[in-house]
């Protein structure tokens, strides 16, 4: 009982410390409002405003109608260039796609001679290249069909396929972007905040003051975890309801309570990692480097940027050790798919387990790290 009272009172001190540093508070507010908003709204669609040029050597009604069919938001207004310009223009990255319409194209189509139409694609942007290519193909096919049949009716096929998207029927990219941004902020800020809180106490010597009182390292560490975690939890909730749900209009399908509980668990784990880094780093410079080494993989490999199953088989087992991977899976399931606890419990278990490992490891190193300082 006394243990928990100590943890509570020590934590209130942590809260006061963080909240009295206006610079840090300002950064937290910025991260959870402006930054989330920017990230969510920046990416509306994978292929968006893609630069495109047309080499029109046909100058026919069909070639013009193809050019007219390419328009925002997927593509920019196509520019007309000459065949000689293509190589240079693509080298200079002026265009992501170049469509070359050969002479007599329209005539050949009319005479069913199957003329070739070339699409040059800058394949250094992998996702955009493949998606854009399929968009262009379907647009061209549609225009050609329309031209041939003089109607919108497509050729009748024996079987039709209806593709539906579950959980995000219109494919609004902002939904995923918003959640992804929010999760990245949590990871980064919790680790920095908690780790720095520990290092600051070590620098100011107040940690020694605590260690000579009847307090255990467990109490000191846990108080930092809950206090800093709480700050981020509040910031997360406000950002979730006001920025993500209200401002960005992202629907939350699952239970909010479940989302909050899972987030709380994740915050414990992230804070434990922060404590761990604060324990093993001896100077702020070392902490900064360790921090980068930890948060970059946590953010990039969580599955938010590239789906886990697409990652190479060597990396996949490694990501199992990243709490952010499990949390990302959990949050996606709850927010988009409306999953309940019976579905997401394995993720929650994994997050808890990893958090406990980091927490216990920090405790084991705690006193030793204080003692090695001079």
């Amino acid at each position: 009982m006394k243990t928990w009272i100590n943890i509570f009172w020590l934590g209130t001190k942590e809260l006061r410390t963080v909240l009295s540093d206006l610079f840090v508070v300002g950064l937290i507010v910025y991260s959870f409002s402006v930054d989330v908003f920017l990230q969510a709204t920046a990416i509306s669609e994978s292929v968006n405003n893609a630069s495109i040029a047309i080499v029109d050597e046909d100058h026919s009604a069909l070639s013009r109608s193809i050019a007219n069919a390419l328009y925002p938001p997927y593509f920019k207004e196509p520019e007309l260039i000459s065949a000689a310009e293509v190589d240079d223009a693509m080298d200079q990255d002026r265009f992501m796609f170049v469509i070359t319409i050969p002479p007599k194209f329209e005539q050949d189509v009319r005479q069913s001679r199957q003329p070739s139409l070339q699409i040059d694609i800058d394949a250094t942007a992998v996702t955009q290249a493949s998606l854009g290519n399929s968009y262009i193909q379907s647009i061209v096919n549609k225009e050609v069909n329309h031209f041939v049949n003089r109607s919108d009716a497509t050729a009748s096929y024996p079987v039709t396929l209806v593709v539906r998207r579950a959980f995000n029927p219109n494919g609004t990219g902002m939904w995923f972007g918003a959640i992804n941004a929010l999760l990245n902020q949590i990871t980064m800020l919790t680790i920095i905040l908690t780790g720095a809180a520990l290092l600051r106490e070590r620098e100011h010597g107040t940690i020694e003051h605590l260690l000579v009182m009847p307090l255990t390292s467990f109490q000191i560490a846990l108080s930092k975890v809950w206090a800093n975690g709480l700050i981020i939890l509040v910031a997360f909730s406000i950002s979730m309801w006001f920025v993500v749900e209200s401002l960005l209009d992202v629907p939350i399908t699952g239970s909010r309570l479940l989302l909050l509980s899972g987030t709380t668990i994740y915050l414990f784990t992230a804070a434990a990692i922060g404590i761990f880094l604060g324990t093993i780093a001896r100077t702020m410079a070392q902490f900064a480097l360790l921090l980068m080494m930890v948060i970059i993989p946590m953010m990039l490999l969580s599955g938010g940027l590239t789906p886990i199953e697409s990652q190479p088989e060597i990396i996949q087992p490694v990501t199992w050790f990243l709490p952010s991977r499990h949390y990302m899976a959990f949050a996606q399931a709850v927010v988009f798919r409306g999953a309940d606890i019976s579905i997401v419990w394995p993720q929650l278990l994994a997050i808890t387990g990893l958090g406990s490992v980091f927490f216990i490891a920090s405790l084991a190193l705690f006193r030793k790290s204080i003692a090695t300082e001079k």
Partner: protein
Amino acid sequence: MAEQHPIARVQGVTHNYKKTLALDNITLDIPAGLMVGLLGPDGVGKSTLLGLISGARKLQQGNLEVLGGDMALTNHRNSIGPRIAYMPQGLGKNLYSELSVKENLDFFGKLFGLSHTERKTRIARLTQATGLYTFLSRPAGKLSGGMKQKLGLCCSLIHDPDLLILDEPTTGVDPLSRRQFWELIATIRNERTSMSVIVSTAYMDEAEGFDWLVAMDDGHVLDTGTPQELKTRTDSENLEAAFIRLLPKEKTANNSELIIPPYEKTEGAPAIIAKGLTRRFGDFTAVNDVSFEIQAGEIFGFLGSNGCGKTTTMKMLTGLLPVSEGEAFLFGKPVDASDLETRKRVGFMSQGFSLYGELTVKQNLMLHARLFHLTASKTTERIEALVKRFGLHNYMESHASSLPLGMRQRLSLAVAVIHEPEILILDEPTSGVDPIARDEFWGLLVELSRRDKVTIFISTHFMNEALRCDRISLMHAGKVLIYDEPQHLVEAKGAASLEEAFISYLEDAIGEVDTPEIQLDKPLVTETDSSGGLKDKTKDVKLRGFSLNRLLAYSYLETIQVIRDPVRLAFAFLGSAILLIVIAYGISLDVEDLTFAVLDMDQTPQSRQYVSNFQGSRYFIEQAELHSTDELERRLKSNNITLAIEIPPGFGRDLKKGQTPSISAWIDGANTTRASTIEGYVMGAHVQYLTHMATSLGIDASATYKVNLVSRYRYNPSFETINSIGPKTPAMLLLLFPAILMAVSISREKEIGTITNFYVTPTNRLEFLIGKQIPYIGIGMANFVILTLMVVFLLQVPLKGSLLGLSLGAFFYVCASTAFGLLVSSITKSQVAAIFATAVLSVMPSVQFSGIIQPTSTLEGAGHFIGSVWPATYYMHLSVAAFTKGLSFTDLTQDLVVLAIFGPCFVIFAAMFLKKQEA
């Protein structure tokens, strides 16, 4: 040189720190050519005044003339800067602890434009005179307090200043070193009679030897004059008494002579026992075989200089530090870090009053009461009693950080005794506190000891406080020289005072200990010397304006510091190498191995044929069949499948009848980019099915196509992610690592105080910033080489284009990323804030807006804008162009030009925000 123009003329100067008034309308003429002392406790404005005179602080209000010119004018400050030397408060505050004695001196010499030979001669002379010569290669951080101060003095004297400003140079230094320090100053002044010295001190006894004194209190000047004049005016025997009499009446109202009742020895076991305590840090022995016993109820003093092992010993007794050898006992029980019960009986007040400054007095007291689990009524009772006894009632709601030093000290003690401990361990509780507050503090200690029988173990470097202890131990260089009653120690040496006795013991010890401190028998340089000694040399014009040598001095300094921190260096290289592998392999844009399941409600050969199209694809992996729409929904929800194919009943029949049956494909749309790609795959498989069917019916499917679409994937025909991500990843790493290292480097100087060297030397902003930046550009470029080799040989992405273009781009880019670090650190005050700001401001644009996955040109709104003004965007672009597109140098020029602009812009902004003076 007696009557001449005052060296400094202060008129109506007022200085504020936020709401605290440090100097209140001070008017004062400080005579030249004298040794002038500023007298008074901490926090009365001495340091502020010295900072203003030296030009380190910015004048807020009033007029200040130093060396005949107005200090508000930048031009004048720049021209007299080289004639002033300023040694800030704090042991070795302006020294670089990783650098050796010689390197430190060399650095200061370079800042003042001394040539190589000049530096060599002066360093030799100064170090010989101060006894530092034998320690030339020892890092400054490993010198004793006294030696640090001597080194600080040497650094100040290296450029032969006309005005020497020393801020509390002897605080925390052992008495022998102190005496040597003043002897040294006296020798120098004998040789250069024209040099003026302004010193501040809290030791009244030192001030007796000065020529002219300024007594200060609360931002006011109490009185000025020679020591004799002050004593006569106040009719006092010594300066301490004189000072107290100069103070306003209300302050001295309840100051009475402190009487300490004699100590009555109690029987029973000693409260504290140390047996052969030893503590080593690496190869450095901080505490060497220390033994003593402290009786219950005794006041035991620990006397010695800073860094002699007092604090380390106390930390071992409290269990904060494990002992290397020996044993310690509290209340007869061995010290055990995990023993919470013993800790409840001990109170500890650590050096520098480690209170939580952001909490109020009341909150601090409450927090500690709660942590010691006092009951509610007991808490109220204790707090009431302590507040009354310690006179804290007027400050209950003030933040601890805003309290005057004396009050903070009392609060610290109150906090340490709130749980009524039986042992009280106090580590230098009185340093920097004014004499009256110190007396009052001792009154409280005596009461605790004699009335409440608390055992008090206190460390101090004030002799008069040592005299008040029942017994003291003299400590030096990790060893206890002797311990006994103070009076006995004085008698045993036949000395006039405890200070002399201590010096005598020190001299005995130094005979044995292997640290020969000083040989002052060697005379310091003589003025007639013409070979570059301390002669009065005309101040060079070369000190003004931009100096490449000073810039390089900073670069050299930074390089040494980085090299001497191998952990940081290793991380800087290994870290980015490891991350390159993790990220380049980890980020894959190839969407494959997608799990799918079929809900086949038809179960005919036709339906199975349709499904076979998916089963054969390398993109899809089939999972157990679905049986109902409920199951479909559930398994999509649980992420068991990402794609479900639903075939309606009667599919085969309808197909045969030509009734165009419809199949549904459900895609998990949570990740929209992935969903779009899957959609493309599904459509592809569907078309393939249709073609198959047509072929089997004898129709040439290809004939139905009106056009033949030929897609050419340029630059990356194999369409592998690595060809895109491989060259882009270094862009992220070459930004984040150099930026954060750079930011920490500058903010660290701010935090530990070496930034003062930038304030008070002729260094200009660009020399400082670019000088510090160069080593990190070097680290960045070395990283670039490593990463490029890894990309080519490990990730097997060939460099098809211009290596020169790529390298030049990397150079500009690293200049930009380090300059961004400079910019952040020029705005932030602490290292924590610098890390926080660098991470928050740089990670997001680099990961999200620079085109690592989503090209910046396809972004919307503010994200697009941020991406276009962020250097990573251009370097990623250039790197991909050089690696994958294989472009030549001329084709890369556009990116190169843009990249080249970032660095200088950031540096200019940083220079604008970086202040050349403290506020």
